[in-house]
């Protein structure tokens, strides 16, 4: 009888998942995606691991000389206008469209030289199929135009902590204040 008690207590202790995964995901949540990603800290996970954070997402590639530096600068501008006390509830996510070149080591170097090494910066890469699928989730167009260059549309997207898309801003010269404002509202309301 006693052993049954311990067995049950053990089950109770080990099987409980954290609070935020208890609620069912909304039907349009990006956390349904089952693709596997690697970050600049060499950790491997599904996007679902980011559940609970408000996400600011952009797709770039690190060897890009044209639009990407502007997008990265936009992301930094957004970061500066997010309430500092909210930053641990936010992930600023940069997803590579060139997973072959952008290895975790390369992403880590890019993050460091760009001063984006705080824990809320997340750089991700996967394989080509998952990258293509993720681009489609963002309604983003992209095409490899040479071994080292891509054409792509510039979109910054915000997802709420359940992974629902709540805002997209397109083009270079994004209104960082507007995006950050929406992030602050979302964190406050969650």
């Amino acid at each position: 009888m006693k052993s049954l008690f311990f067995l049950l207590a053990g089950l109770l202790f080990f099987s409980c998942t954290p609070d935020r995964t208890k609620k069912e995901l909304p039907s349009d949540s990006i956390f349904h995606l089952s693709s596997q990603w690697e970050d600049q800290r060499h950790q491997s996970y599904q996007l679902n691991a980011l559940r609970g954070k408000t996400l600011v997402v952009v797709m770039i590639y690190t060897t890009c000389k044209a639009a990407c530096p502007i997008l990265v600068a936009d992301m930094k501008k957004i970061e500066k206008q997010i309430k500092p006390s909210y930053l641990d509830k936010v992930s600023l996510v940069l997803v590579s469209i060139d997973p072959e070149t952008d290895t975790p080591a390369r992403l880590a170097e890019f993050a460091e030289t760009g001063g984006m090494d705080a824990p809320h910066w997340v750089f991700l890469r996967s394989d080509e199929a998952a990258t293509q699928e993720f681009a489609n989730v963002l309604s983003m167009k992209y095409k490899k135009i040479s071994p080292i260059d891509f054409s792509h549309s510039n979109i910054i997207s915000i997802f709420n902590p359940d992974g629902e898309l709540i805002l997209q801003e397109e083009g270079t010269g994004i209104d960082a204040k507007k995006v950050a404002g929406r992030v602050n509202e979302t964190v406050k309301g969650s």
Partner: protein
Amino acid sequence: MSPNLIHIISIILSLVWCVSCGRQEATPDAISPATTLPEIKSPVMMVDIPGGEYQPFYGSDTALVKVKPFLIDERPVTNGEFLAFVKAYPQWRRSEVKRLYADTNYLHSWIADTVLPAHADLNAPVTQLSWYAAKAYARAVGKRLPTLDEWEWVAMADETVPNARKKKSYSDRIVNLYLVKGKQYNAVKQSPPNYWGVYNFFDLVWEWTDDFNSVLVTGDSRSGEYSDNNLFCAGSATSATDVLNYAAFMRFSMRAGLKAHYTVANLGFRCARDTEPGLNIEVKK
């Protein structure tokens, strides 16, 4: 502590555990290669297409694009085949599909999850499905979607030659076919095949391609030669590499307007796969 008390505590604990720790099961989505899937049969014959080089219809590049040899379904996937798929994959039924993967019009004309519209022909091409659903089907039958270049490579053929782009009648005829309404309700393989022996490339439905989202027409496209306004206005067809090919222009406009979760009443798909030695499928040479 008496055994009875322990017993009661155990029961309470197990109840608490059952109620509070219900785990969410990850739904297999037929997209991730990691999940194991029920395999369904694809009875469609495939056609062996030799590779080559071609001038893509759109883009500033004058460089030719290489297309490797590949196999393509001789006709689009039908209602009957897609019905078998949703029976085997409940997550792709109309009431089950995640909004992330298909808009609210997904299989809208079907009477129920596994019931086709009253007068639907089992052999007519399936339509009103998203890119995700088409990809999931292709994976379930051990194939993939054709790339945009593969599709356009086959599309250059008319009934007699592999590349009919220079003939004026070629594009005119396709454009006329595109203008016929309600043609998606007709059965497949009722019209003559093209040079390769492939049916219904133009006369029933538009078709998803794997990389439909590689058509870059936003204003920030790096070549800077065309913008949204330009593309959707017929006048800009002249900036394409092939002014005679108005039909291809229509297809690229269509693709540029699509998002992966969109479902459209006259948009279906067919499958393709890489050519490999020792393939155990029926191939038309």
